[in-house]
């Protein structure tokens, strides 16, 4: 009998079926808790402006793209969207270019200062990073980086870099060093061994951590609002208009912000756990 127990599982045979119902009920309830608010946003997004302002509301969308079209044609939205993509892309490239070598070094070498570097990376977790934007706003004006894509991407890279280091560290650690050693004995030098053997194996993981960096930048609001004035990213643009724009515009903006992020998280879901599993140690 007792072999039927797994950790945390409910003792089905002993306690009867109501335990099972309770368990299933809790799981379904928690799924609804996550999904229903997103559904409601989509209902508002896919309704006309009148339906969004109407009361009481119907729980089903009328499938009308008026709000979305109005949003996409609204002055400044296209530019903000394009800025968001540019900043997120630069962030993605910078954080992988700087983070992946560090991840590789941490997984393959023992050297003095390794722990210092790890502490530096983990320390970023204990600091409210968006605050960095404040002093940088002053500094950027002095060096001509104010209101620029690159300047904001630097701050976003600070947010994404620790994740990139930790993900790539766990990726490289998962590949046995024997594979590399075999390549060396067959006449590859260190660089060739990396390029021909290790790189193809970690490519999907690197792509996942790049996507994750993209999402971090795509979602960031505070630093974007502090550092940009003319070249607003989409979140900063939406934040600025929160107090005075009509409801249906806010909801359409929210949906445009949410949907790509949902897709990206779906693509990287496998790597979420390796990333945080390693972060615990």
């Amino acid at each position, binding site marked *: 009998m007792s072999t039927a*127990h797994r*950790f*945390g*599982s409910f*003792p089905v045979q002993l306690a009867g079926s109501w335990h099972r119902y309770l*368990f299933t009920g809790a799981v379904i309830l*928690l799924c609804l808790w*996550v*999904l229903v*608010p997103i559904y*409601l946003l989509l209902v508002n997004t896919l309704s006309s402006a009148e339906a969004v302002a109407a*009361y*009481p*509301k119907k*729980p089903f969308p009328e499938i009308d793209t008026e709000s979305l079209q109005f949003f996409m044609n609204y002055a400044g939205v296209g530019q903000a969207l394009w800025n968001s993509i540019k900043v997120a892309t630069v962030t993605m490239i*910078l954080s992988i270019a*700087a983070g992946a*070598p*560090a991840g590789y070094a941490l997984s*393959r070498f023992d050297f003095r*200062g390794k722990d210092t*570097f790890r502490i*530096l*990376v983990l320390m970023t*977790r*204990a*600091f409210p*990073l*968006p*605050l*960095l934007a*404040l*002093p*940088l706003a002053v*500094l950027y004006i002095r060096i001509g980086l104010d209101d620029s894509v690159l300047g904001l991407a*630097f701050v976003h890279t*600070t947010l994404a*870099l620790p994740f990139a280091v930790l993900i790539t560290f766990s990726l490289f650690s998962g590949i046995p060093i024997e594979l590399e050693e075999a390549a060396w004995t067959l006449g590859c030098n260190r660089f060739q061994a990396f390029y021909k053997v290790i790189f193809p194996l970690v490519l999907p993981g690197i792509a996942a951590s790049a996507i994750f960096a993209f*999402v971090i930048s795509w*979602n960031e*609001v*505070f630093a974007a609002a*502090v550092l940009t004035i003319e070249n607003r990213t989409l*979140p900063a643009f*939406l*934040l600025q208009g*929160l*107090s005075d724009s009509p*409801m249906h515009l*806010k909801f359409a903006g*929210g949906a445009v912000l949410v949907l790509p*992020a*949902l897709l990206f*998280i779906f693509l990287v*879901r496998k790597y*979420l*756990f390796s990333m945080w*599993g390693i*972060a*615990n140690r």
Partner: protein
Amino acid sequence: MYPRSLPYLLLLPSTLFLCVFFLYPFGLVAWQAFVTDTGQFTSEFFVEMKSHWKFGTALTNTLMLALAVVPFQICLALYMATLVNGMKRGRDLILYIWTIPLGISDLAAGIIWLAVFEQTGFLNSMLQGIGVIDQPMSLLSYQNTGTIFLAILLAEVWRATAIVLVILVAGMGLIPKEYYEAAEVFGAGRWKRFTRITLPLLKPSLQTAMILRVILAFEVFAVVVALGGTNLPVLMGEIYTWQFDLQDANVAAAYALVILVISIACTLLIMWGLRTPKGARV
């Protein structure tokens, strides 16, 4: 085998980056908060910050929100993690659904819950539909800071429990199954196994999750702006106001230093409170 400088060479870009864009700006913030444009050392920015009528409210609101949100999230995520671990089929699907909010920004989460709580929103519509109210209540106006607080609380729990869940599920995966089997042989029930095995061995993960969440809770900003406008001041919102509307970067820096200090204090407190003695790690 390899030149001794290779690992340092590989670490150089990210170290340089973190020094220039992480360590250096934090030095700058402290400088800005204490030193005037003419180079005078002063505490006037802190005095100005403290004497502003919104400072006390903003500080209290931020701390209260963190205090309400974080423990609730930890408990909810613990419950969700044990549910997931007890699952035989569909584990991956459920886990994906529960981690969806991970990809949603705080601003978007605020807008999502605005759809629920605004005056013509879905909550009022539903209550009217089942006949509880006759006309829509105004839930997010300045007279109702209580409901604004509640709405922000729900939005934060909704959005950021996912990250705690991921950390805890990853942590539970590290606990050897043999411990549970041994406990079962000796007759420990489900609750006893949870409190005597899971919780103590999960301490490092709980520590990571709590530090991360507390820091993020002190930074709460866009959710608050989306749901409450300026009706419920928080520290991060005040920073934004001082930086832009009042054009005073020095006072904004003083505020930033306040957030920094309470963040570091809480991090140290959590690290101490949930420390794992050496040799007691999985």
